[in-house]
């Protein structure tokens, strides 16, 4: 099952919007898309998960890998979601301390990537 994804620009950030369910079956598609974006020169990525209906630990693993890939390249990744379920999942896994989570794209892309890329802030 294809994972619906599309990209758009928001200020200095590239936004990757993902819909559907992220699990062991679909996560490789997200991973490949992030790799392609970073390989193509993207260093400031907003991952918009507003339309995700389900995300399991495989999906969380892909997000962690994406954060690592972007920071290794001097960039950063921010996550967008307003979904209580997903926010709770980030909280119980404490991943909300690994990457920043914003309620919408405007908030996520309001400041430059360098302003929040220092991990010592967390």
């Amino acid at each position, binding site marked *: 099952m294809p994972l619906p994804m599309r990209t758009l620009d928001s200020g200095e950030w590239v936004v990757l919007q993902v819909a559907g369910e992220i699990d062991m079956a679909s996560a490789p598609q997200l991973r490949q898309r992030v790799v392609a974006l970073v390989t193509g020169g993207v260093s400031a990525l907003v991952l918009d998960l507003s339309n995700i209906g*389900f995300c399991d630990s495989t999906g969380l693993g892909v997000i962690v890998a994406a954060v690592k890939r972007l920071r290794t390249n001097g960039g950063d990744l921010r996550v967008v979601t307003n979904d209580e379920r997903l926010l709770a999942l980030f909280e119980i896994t404490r991943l909300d301390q690994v990457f920043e989570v914003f309620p919408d794209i405007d908030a996520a892309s309001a400041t430059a990537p360098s302003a929040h890329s220092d991990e010592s802030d967390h």
Partner: protein
Amino acid sequence: MTDWAVELEIPAEPEYLSMVRAVVSTAAGLDPRLKDSRIEDLRLAVSEATTNAIESHVNMGSSERVTIRCDLRDDQVEVEVTDHGEGFDHGDLVPHPPVTDPNRLEYERGLGLSLIRILADEHEIVSDSEGTSVRLVVYTAPTARP
């Protein structure tokens, strides 16, 4: 509520995960006492257990099926995920470093069992060289809690 059960046997392929989630959440939703948030807890926990089962079969190259049985009992929903994979030893699981440690980014995996422990009211994992069985329980009535 009358005891009621549904059992699935699926090929060990990730494409079947969404079907397992749909069946288990629909079955659990038959008990009106179970809140949506608890059905979501169960949905994720079952998905994690089934993912591990599928992965175990894939690692072994096994073509055997994974079984998911969902029982609606008087005061709880119980789901058992059984595989015929290689099994695992809890002692071999490496804990993640703290989130403040930059090395946390080296750990993309291993959250599944943690989530199962957090989301289910009860869980039991029995694993040996013949395979693994994960039993998950979510209480439907507050009085069921010990």
